[in-house]
Each structure stands twice: as C-alpha cells, then as structure tokens.
C-alpha cells in the first residue's frame, strides 16, 4: 500500500463526500430552519437520478438533464411540503414520519416506473476519460464532481451570508419568533430553503450517477451516510455539512478499501466519537 493507494482512495473519498454534501446540505439546512428531519432527502437524490437518466436516454444533454432532475424533484418536494409538511414544522416527530412515508412512496414509485434493475450512468463524453500521473490513474469525472459540489457550497454560503434572503433565513434560524416580530416572512424562508434542499439533492442524483449508479434501495444505503455527515458536522450547520461530508467520504473510501466487511462500521467510528464527546457535532449548536 504505497502512496498510490492513499492518493487514489483520498480522491475517490473526496468525490464521494462531495456527493454526500449535495444531500446533506439540504438535510442540515432544512433541519436548522424548520426542525424537520427530512429523511426523504436521499429519496430526492434517487428521484433526480432516475428523471435525469431517462432524459439522457432520450438524447438530452447531461447537464441539462441533471438540472431537470433537480427541478422535477423540487416541484414534487414543494408539493408535499405545501400540502402536508409545512403544518408540522414545530413537530419534529410528525414531520419525520411524513418524510419517511414519502420516502417509501418515492422508493416504490421508482421501482414501479423504472423496474428493479440497477442503471449505470455514463459521465458526459468530455469528462469520460481518466487522468494519469505515473502509476496513478483516476477518472476525470471525480474532479468534476468535487468542483461542482464546491461551487454549490460556495453559492450556498454566499446566498446565506451576503443576500437579504440569506439574512432573513439566518434570522429565522436564530430566533424564529423575533424574526416574525420584526417582519421577516419566515414562511417564505421555509419555502425557499425546502426548495433549495430538494433541488440540490435532485440535481445531485444524475451528477452522482456515474459514481453511485441508480437502483431502488440506493436511498436507503445513502441515508446512514448523510446522517453520519450531519452528526459529525452538527445539525443545522452548513460549514459542518461540508467538513462532515469530506470526513465521511474519506473514512468511507478508506474503510471500504481496508475493511470491506465493516465499512459501515468504520464510518460510524468518527460518528460515535462525536456523539460521545460532542453530541451537537463539530459546528452545531446544542439541540
């Protein structure tokens, strides 16, 4: 296990972690603002993947198809949010069970519409090759995924820190009642954040496809990872989600390489340590 082993797994882990960020950012923001533990977030990812791969199969451009996957997911997510979820934002248990019910519906719907076979997804042709440095070979697409996720993260940070809407969202997170009192349209902030969370996860579906492929049950496998991310980073913290994604991505890659039978377990070593010594996560506030 020379240097090559480490670099290879580190890059793979970072790429995978970047994908996790696309799921976990929505999970953490939606929870931070609305106290909704959105377990449908990985189902959003799966839905985005299937919508996207269908469009690609019909000749749509890969990037366009990813965005379309994000939009379809967002519309569906917002429909569920507006019809049911928004009433329960002060009631974490009810909203959690609703999102779990929704995840079941999406999962089964995907199975009904697209069948149970796994779909592998090819990266767009311009990114299909691999890079080679000496003995080190890795797909170009890994780098692309890392770049895209960091761009998304940057957009989210700027939106939260530098725009009026971001200020309103942060105010609602800090003290919802006070924010309402000074005239912040908290409900609009909720709506926007839920839309963004669903969109980004749906967008991630096709983008992550070349790495995770798409099959019914993928969402169930991603949920523990997304959860590990937000526990390490701290529920409600965007920077926590970013750091947490990279940590979990790396631990996952090395865990799978070194202890293939226990990879879920190795992921949860940092999680258990965090839970034992800092239950609110690295960047989170006390729940």
């Amino acid at each position, binding site marked *: 296990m020379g240097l090559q082993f480490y670099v290879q797994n580190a890059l793979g882990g970072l790429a995978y972690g970047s994908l996790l960020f696309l799921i976990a950012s929505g999970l953490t923001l939606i929870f931070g603002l609305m*106290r909704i*533990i959105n*377990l449908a977030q990985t189902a959003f990812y799966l839905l985005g993947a299937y919508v996207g791969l269908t469009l690609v199969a019909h000749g749509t451009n890969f990037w366009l198809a990813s965005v379309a996957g994000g939009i379809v997911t967002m519309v569906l997510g917002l429909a569920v949010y507006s019809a*049911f979820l928004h009433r*329960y934002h*002060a*009631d*974490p*248990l*009810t909203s*959690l*069970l*609703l999102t*779990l*019910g*929704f*995840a*079941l*519906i999406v*999962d*089964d*719907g995907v*199975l*009904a519409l697209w069948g149970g076979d796994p779909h592998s997804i090819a990266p767009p042709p311009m990114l299909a090759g691999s890079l080679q440095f000496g003995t080190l070979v890795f797909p170009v697409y890994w780098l692309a995924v890392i770049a895209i996720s960091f761009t998304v993260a940057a957009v989210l940070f700027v939106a939260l820190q530098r725009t009026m809407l971001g200020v309103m969202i942060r105010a609602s997170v800090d003290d919802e009642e006070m924010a309402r009192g000074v005239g912040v349209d908290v409900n609009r902030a909720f709506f926007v954040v839920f839309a963004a969370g669903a969109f980004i996860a749906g967008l991630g579906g096709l983008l992550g496809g070349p790495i995770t492929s798409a099959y019914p049950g993928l969402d*169930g496998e991603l*949920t*523990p990872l997304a*959860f*590990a991310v*937000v*526990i390490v980073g701290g*529920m409600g913290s965007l920077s926590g989600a970013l750091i947490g994604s990279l940590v979990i991505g790396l631990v996952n890659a090395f865990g799978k390489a070194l202890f293939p*039978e*226990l*990879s*879920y*377990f190795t*992921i*949860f070593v940092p*999680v*258990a340590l965090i*839970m*034992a010594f800092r*239950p*609110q996560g690295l960047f989170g506030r006390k*729940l």
Partner: protein
Amino acid sequence: MSLRRRWTVAAVAGLVVALLLPRLGVPTFYISLLTQTWIFAIVAMSLDLLVGFTGLVNFSQAALFGVGAYAVAIGATRFHITAFAPVVALGIVSAVVTAAIFGLVALRSEGVGFIIITIALNEIVWGLAYQWVSMSGGDNGITGIVRPHVGPFDVSANTGYYYVCLAFFVIALLLLLVIVRSPFGLVLKGVRETPRRMRALGYNVWLYRYLALMISGGFAGLAGVLFAWYNQFVGPVALSLDQSTQILIMVILGGIGTLYGQVLGAFVVVFLSNELSAVTQRWEMVLGIVYFVVVMYAPGGLVVLIPRLWGRLHGRRTALVPHEPLLGPAGIANAPAEIAEDS
C-alpha cells in the same frame, strides 16, 4: 360499569377469543398473522414504555429487536445453542447489553437530538448486519433456525407456536403494566412530563431513562427471539430503519402511552401489510400513505379515534384529531391522550 372494569372485561374476553381461535377452524394463514401480531405487540409495547411513559422517541427499537433475532440465529448456527430457555435468555441479554451501550451514547441528548442519534445507532447495527457477511450472512441473512421444544411440548407447528407467542405477549403485557404502575413507573412519567422538575426533586433523570431503555431493550429482544423462530430466518430487514418506523407507527396507531393499545396497532399494521402485499405489488407505497394518514388523522391512536367516532355517531361534537403535536416544543414526547376524557 366503570371504565376500568369495562376494559378488564374486554381484555379477558379478548384473551378467551385469542385462546379459542385456533380451535375454531380459522385458516392457518390468519393464525400465523396473529402470531406475528403477538410478537410485534411485544416490541411495540416495549417502545411505548419509552415513548409513552419516559418521553424518549427511540428510533433504534428495531436494532434491539433485531439483535435478539440475530442472537438466536448466530447462537444456533455457530454455537449450537438451541434449547428453549438458553436461547430466550441469550436474546434478551444481547438486546439489554446493546441497549446499555446505546444508552451511554444516545442519552447524552434528549428530544430531537435523541431521535437523530438513535436513527444513526439503528443504521450502524443495520450496516453490520448488511455488510458483515461472514457473521450475519449479509443481505441473504441466516436460515435454518429451528423452533425448539418448550418443556415437553413440540411447538414447531403453527398452532403450537401461536400459543407460545400469545403466552409471552400476555406475560410481557402484565409485566409492563406492573412496571408502569409501580413507583418506578411513576418516576418515569414524571421524567416524561417535566424532566427539569424531577431533577430538582433529586431524581437522577439520566439513570431512570437509562434503566427504562434497558428494560425496553429486554422486551424488544424477547420479541426478536420469537420473530426469529417464527420466520426460521433472520435478515437485515428485521433491523432496518423502516422496521423501526413501522414499530413506531404501531405505537402511535395503538395510542401512545396505553400499552394495551399497542396490540391493536400491531394487529392493524401486520394484517394491513400482509393483506396489501397479497392484493397489490405496490403495498410499500400504500404503507407510505398509511404513515401520512396515521400521523395526520390519528395521532392519538385508535383507542382515542374509535370512541370519538362513536361519539360523533351519537351526536356528540368532539374533535376527531387532537391538536397537540406528537412531540412538544422541547422535543419530549407529549403526554398521551387520556382515555377517561372520552368515556
């Protein structure tokens, strides 16, 4: 007739019917669904001890249940532990130990934090069962579990096993009723209602929660043992997050904080999912819709909904759906609906 006596009469009548059913020519298919009902009623009651009486919404109940089930499977296939009493003990002890470990981690938070951490804990155990192929058989699970003799009785047939599960259900219900009505149970209720005040009164809130979690784990493990024998197979589905959620739905549907209501919740979920899967391939989707309906329209459970519907039929104007959230602002499960107000 007082409400209490009416419930007692209903319970005794129910037990008599349950005892007679296999003799009345009920098809074996339904007998085996009822066997499942008794098993899931035990694990649902064990969760109700936490949700309804201690204020802890535990999403890792399926992990405790599954540890009991896997203990049977691994004990039988690797260590040749197959006799009745040792296996039951092994399953219960494994689940209690797991609960004790979970408690050390999860009880550092309460409310929503507790929910999040128990979801993660459930996923860890599921991940082990799913991936540790050499120990757990992975996705294929472990087959070849044989139902043991109970003393002189051969219970390998469905009818015999039905009685075993029914007996354990009745024992578990009685034990849990004794626990929640004991001084210990009263402290638990105090912990649920106002943990801060209980702390001020000098009770070690953490310790009471910890003990409740271990007791609950023991009952969940027992149910897991019965489940492993029932199916003669254990797979990772038994301890998935979906399984935890289904158990919680049984608790809510039965009526949080009632104990006896949970048998109703288990009955509805077991029969619904089996009947649905016979009728449609899309039963998972229907189950998802059922989640919506239950949490939105029956958060107080059937034990509240049915009397209220009855009241409506007789012209009383009562709200069908209570407006209190399932989980209060502090993140502690709300006080269960009192049955008395509907009588």
